[in-house]
């Protein structure tokens, strides 16, 4: 399931995406693509997409914003934007890659808009209940060892279950770069884990 994204979604403008490269798509991929095509008119399709990808979208957003509530807003904004997609080929597109690309663009946009606040640890938002705060702090402590690109790579791989090839498309870089980033990131985390022990 591969496709070339000619115009990437993101920003406040209308989302226009064209997939041009013909590839076989599996059943799941077809289902996702179909749901994307239908979600502008069908609340049911949108809900299915939400259930399927909420966790991945949140993870991508969190890796970029490192803020619980901002990531929650990114989730909402990402799915709203999916309903605004005007041209999407259900037969040719990489639906999951497309959704996570939108999520990444939304998160980058939100971080840019709110980066002053996000950069300040004091008002960084870890969520409301105890468990959420605990998880947020754990993830932030872990990921802060990494630079921005490494952080996104690790989350896309571990939390969004994407292949290196898919990550390369989302992050717009060569697959070899993704692999080396991931390897480097894990070695950093491994050292950190060793230090903590």
């Amino acid at each position, binding site marked *: 399931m591969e496709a070339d994204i000619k115009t990437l979604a993101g920003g406040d403008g209308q989302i226009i995406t064209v997939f041009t490269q013909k590839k076989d798509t599996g059943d799941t991929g077809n289902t996702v693509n179909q749901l994307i095509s239908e*979600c*502008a008119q069908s*609340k049911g399709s*949108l*809900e299915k997409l*939400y259930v399927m990808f*909420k*966790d991945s979208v*949140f*993870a991508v957003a*969190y890796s970029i914003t490192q803020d*619980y509530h901002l*990531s*929650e807003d990114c*989730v*909402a904004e990402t*799915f*709203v934007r999916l*309903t605004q997609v005007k041209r999407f080929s259900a037969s040719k597109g990489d639906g999951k890659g497309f959704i996570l690309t939108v999520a990444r663009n939304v998160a*980058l946009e939100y971080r*840019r808009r709110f*980066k*002053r*606040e996000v*950069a*300040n*640890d004091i008002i960084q938002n870890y*969520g409301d*209940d105890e*468990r*959420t705060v605990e*998880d*947020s702090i*754990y*993830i932030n402590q*872990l990921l*802060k*060892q*990494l*630079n*921005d690109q490494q*952080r996104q790579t*690790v*989350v896309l*791989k*571990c*939390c969004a279950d994407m292949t290196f090839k898919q990550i390369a498309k989302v992050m717009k870089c060569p697959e070899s770069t993704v692999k080396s980033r991931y390897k480097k990131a*894990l070695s950093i*985390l*491994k050292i950190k*884990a*060793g230090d903590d022990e």
Partner: protein
Amino acid sequence: MKNDDIRIESELEKELKERMNGLSARVNCFEKISERAFPSNETDFEVVVSDVENVSGRFKSAPVLKIAAAAAAAVAIIAVIPRTAAFQNFLADVNEKRDTDFYSIVREIETETKTNTYRTYDIALSDYAKYNIMVNPFCKCPFRIDEETPDARVRLFVRTYNDVQTDQMYAVEYSGEYKNKNFIAAAETAVKFTDEELASVGMYDMYDNYKEDVSSSETFFRSIVDNTVENNFFTDRYGEMTGENGTQLTAAAYSFYSTYKSENEVARYGTEIIYFKNDDDTTYYYDISVGSDHEITWERSLYTDDSSALPTDEANDISMFRKIDIDEGSYEVSDSTRNNKFGYYEPYNSSESPAADDNFNTLKIVYNAFDRPFVTPLSQEGKSSLRIYIPVVNFMSFDSQLDPTINITIDENGSSFKIHNRDLRGSDMINLHRDDPTEEQTEYQDDALFDLARSYSGSLDFYGDDEMHNYVIQVDPGKDFEFSVESGDFK
């Protein structure tokens, strides 16, 4: 070991995934999404279309009306609006914005650069962050890298006195053309000098030498650096410089002069920085070989909204320079049984050198058929003082060509130049291609070669750049020194 790696990695991945899923499980915003994606059709407003609107909904005014409206607006702006509370509030807002700490730095830069002498550098933010030690060995880049503004640049203002830099610096991060509306952040160092303080420094340096005697200080400094190099680096069988573990590397040193201020004194200081890079790596290692090792702090680094622009943690640190402790060179003669005699060449101070400028240069140094990218100091003075070390026994000593060269290309502008045998410096430098070597020199060359050869159990191999003239010299260890040339026409 391998299994441990896999276990740790998979545990980390698993833990991260579980925690992240735990977080996202508590996100429940579908209702919000649904409300925005499928808004209710019911509305509280009644739309009334007047007869002056056309079909597209756009109001078409007559030209006369436009002119009249513009005139009325102008009158309102001149005569009415300034008296309104709203306009007064607007002005107050503007003034408040200009009263921010960010603007106070910008204003101070404007004043300082008009009233005092400053050196100005203009560099890409990413280069500053990567090569910060080449800008100033005592402070880091004051701004964060932001992937949303990949074209961000930094204009750095360094106060000077008697042509010597000081630790009083300002920096502005901007994007596009350098003008106020494109400013992203501004920073200033904690150090501020008064004219009196700088005048009191006079012409003395940290060793109380008069400025006229600075060359003797430099000679003294550099002799220490040369000894430090000889105590820490080695020559391998290919005539390449190596570290203790045998990794081939490129090493250099440059001088940095500035004026500092502490609680007790204001003084000039001279520093020699040694830095090196393994030829198969991109990380540079450096140490302050001579001089005061202190830190210049950025007092404030602020975005336009006064939030901090300073890099926050190690993840933001993309510097390619890592500080290490290199053993200081003793002033004694180094151990002659080790292959650690080095000379150097000055890429900006040799027969074909390009003019030194105030930009980063990445030198692509080519010899022995191998490229060695190597970054230079930012300033003209730093470049002029740059010395790149090379073993006294190197490919030039044996090259079959009459004029063997080190070929250097500057990556940033594509210009290239050559370092010739005559450009090599250093009291120990062997030069078999000298037109008329003295007997003492010839004897010394032989001794140095023998010192080198006897340390190895195998042969010495040297390769020229030109394949047509390649040759191999074999030295049989333990026996008398002799050459065996396999190819080429060794002279």
